[in-house]
């Protein structure tokens, strides 16, 4: 009997990675068939050449990973990751080559999502709970900036301006910021007033998050509640935030600056709204700042330590509570900027907040929970997929109303294939 058991154990050990290998193979087959389809569909000379190069690159990378992995288990894992990257590369290349215009919009959407997802992944990484109020916080921040900028609240019948003064009254605050002449193109649609409003909103949201932690999450933490309790609490907060927005600004759509927004022509026949360039660069700069903060400063090191192992961090003389406070402040500021960017990219609408959770969580989980660079990459993938779908979907009979469901499909696939995400640590 014991011999049979031992043999069984050995066999099991041998094939432990078999499931991963099967999944990885499926992922690779998906990538390759997508690439093959795209090559057949796009038969132009230079495009086909680019595709062939792409193909070779992806195959080579995958082959290398497979070559240097030792056990079956490792191989399965590598196969999945390389297959995912192959899919992403093939999809990205296809989108760039055939749908450059929507790809550009997708990058901008991705930037907005990235700002939200980085904050979300920080909270997820350090406090381990899914912050369901993140989408609504973004929207609330956008409204706070709106209020600071225009001083508008909804009254009994129509909009009112209860404050004697708002940022728009500053001299020249609403004059459009010019886009550099050398680059050509239209001006930004907003003046420096919006930038000040954004900063004010960042301060306000940091404060809101700080107070929420002080009065809701910290008491729950002290009681040793499970992560699901935090999730439910954040759901309650999300609803409360949404109702506040409806109370103060009603459900009508609003814009920071009414009217048509100037556009800019980019290379490759891409024309985008000038504001979107601002959104993109803001996201890049902020993501870089967060990266520097996390990986080049002592505070960041402490944050990563608490995220990895709170016990060990505390033993090493780190005060987790203090780190958590800092984390909320940073997440609040990020959420505010993300919200303002979202409102610039789309519009202000209270209902948008909750639906936004899907792409945010898809990005966070796709990138790997707790990994800011993962959140950035994940957000770009989700954003580009959404916009490409919205561009392509109607051609294949699917309404662009399904845009947010793209994130859901990505989420399900990643949960099935690789729950810890592209950059996630082993748990």
């Amino acid at each position, binding site marked *: 009997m014991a011999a049979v058991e031992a043999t069984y154990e050995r066999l099991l050990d041998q094939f432990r990675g078999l499931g991963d290998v099967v999944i990885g193979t499926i992922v690779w087959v998906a990538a390759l068939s997508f690439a093959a389809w795209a090559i057949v569909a796009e038969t132009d000379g230079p495009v086909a050449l680019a595709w062939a190069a792409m193909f070779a690159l992806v195959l080579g990378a995958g082959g290398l990973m497979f070559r240097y992995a030792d056990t079956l288990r490792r191989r399965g894992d590598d196969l999945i990751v390389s297959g995912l990257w192959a899919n992403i590369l093939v999809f990205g290349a296809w989108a760039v080559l055939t749908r450059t215009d929507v790809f550009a919009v997708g990058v901008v959407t991705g930037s907005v999502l990235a700002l939200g997802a980085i904050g979300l992944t920080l909270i997820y990484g350090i406090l381990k709970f899914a912050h369901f109020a993140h989408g609504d916080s973004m929207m609330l921040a956008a409204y706070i900036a709106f209020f600071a900028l225009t001083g508008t609240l909804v009254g009994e019948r129509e909009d009112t301006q209860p404050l004697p003064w708002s940022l728009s009254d500053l001299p020249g605050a609403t004059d459009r910021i010019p886009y550099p002449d050398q680059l050509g193109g239209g001006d930004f649609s907003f003046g420096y007033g919006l930038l000040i409003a954004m900063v004010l909103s960042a301060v306000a949201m940091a404060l809101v998050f700080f107070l929420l932690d002080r009065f809701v999450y910290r008491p729950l933490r002290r009681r040793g509640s499970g992560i699901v309790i935090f999730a439910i609490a954040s759901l309650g*907060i999300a609803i409360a935030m949404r109702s506040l927005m409806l109370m103060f600004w009603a459900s009508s759509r609003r814009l920071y600056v009414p009217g048509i927004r100037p556009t800019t022509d980019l290379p490759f026949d891409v024309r985008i709204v000038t504001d979107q360039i601002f959104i993109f660069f803001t996201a890049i700069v902020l993501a870089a700042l967060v990266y520097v903060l996390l990986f080049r400063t002592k505070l960041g090191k402490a944050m990563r330590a608490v995220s990895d192992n709170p016990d060990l961090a505390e033993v090493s003389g780190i005060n987790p509570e203090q780190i958590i406070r800092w984390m909320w402040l940073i997440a609040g500021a990020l959420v505010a900027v993300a919200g303002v960017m979202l409102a610039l990219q789309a519009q202000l609408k209270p209902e948008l907040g909750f639906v936004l959770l899907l792409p945010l969580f898809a990005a966070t989980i796709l990138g790997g929970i707790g990994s800011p660079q993962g959140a950035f990459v994940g957000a770009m993938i989700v954003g580009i997929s959404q916009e490409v779908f919205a561009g392509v979907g109607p051609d294949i009979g699917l309404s662009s109303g399904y845009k947010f469901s793209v994130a859901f499909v990505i*989420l399900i696939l990643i949960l099935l294939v690789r729950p810890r995400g592209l950059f996630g640590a082993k748990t």
Partner: protein
Amino acid sequence: MKLPALLTADGLRPRVKWGRLLTPLTFLLVTLGIVILPYARTAGASSLLDIPSTLVGVPAGDDLVSTMSFLTFFGTFVAIYAILTLGLNVQWGYTGILNFGVLAFFLVGANVAAIIAKPPASGEFVEYVGGFGDALNIIPALDSSQWFPFLVGLVGAAAACGVLAFFLSIPALRLREDYLAITTIGIAELLRRITIEERWLVNGTRGLPGIPRPLSGWVEPDEYKFVIFGIVVVVLILVFIAVERGIRSPWGRVLRALREDELTTAASGKNVFAFKSQGFVLGAMIMGVGGAMYGYANSSISPDTFTHFFATFIFWAMLMVGGSGNNKGAILGAFVVWGLWNITLQLQGYDLPTAVGSRIFFIRDFVLGALIVIVLLLRPQGLMPEERRVSIWVERHARRLRGPPPSTGRADVPSD
């Protein structure tokens, strides 16, 4: 799955000392509000200050009738939402599964039951699949009563929700608890979108009016509200008994063990995934029944009902307020929250300051959101704490070993 360094375990103790009075007081206040407000309005009160004077006089017959009619209507929907909350209680209260997409099952239940029980689609702006109502109305003597399509619709709704829940549980239930919450939000949003975008399926944004109502041929249209109230209450009682029996069975004990500690349950030889999946599927089927009853009672469904706020969040509010892990609590929660909901509706009929009157629904939503947080902070066990269901011998033994237990019921919730 907890935050070891951050906690000092002072939990597990209800914070509110007047807890004993809280439940009857809440019940009394909501009942008073829901009876007095509509009555006083029909009796002629136009502002809240008029209410006392309208109460002292002899009640006029008509006012009582219209109040009764309102209360029946109110009771019908309390019972329907109680069914849905019971479904959520099976998932969250007993199995510890976080489902933030009640909307998905509510929607599927209501739509499936409707397209089963409705006659085939006809007319210019009417499109939907199914429509087996006429084919199912097979018993000649009872054909005006529509009872057979109704029953098939209920079963069909439960089955559809069960299948959906089973497939959803595959990717998400094996992983962390909160992944399922996100996944269910996703499926809810997807299904909501599908019902709106795919007009051929369930008539798109126009919704499905004219759902045949069970036993409607038997009574005058005016009196039908009492019939549907009776039917809904019977269904609620059946669901309640089924859940109680299930939870008290060995199967139910495994679910609760899972909720408290997955690892230990797995170590006792239970298949964690299978049991969680069963709990999830059972809860979803009950929600499907609730959704179906909603369609029948309302006689029409509209996609406007199925918003994340209304169709998911309100059931969480009901369950958290009532007490998760207690079926009676779930029903009480449905009563209290739907009572508050209707009290605000009634208040709108009175002269209120415009600043409040125009925002009263948003204020109510804010209160409900805040209520969830407050319940979690101050009274995590809800109005009715979970009853202790450990074997009495185990309890006695434990008392002999280390003194009386610190509290009755579950003070904090599962999966630590």
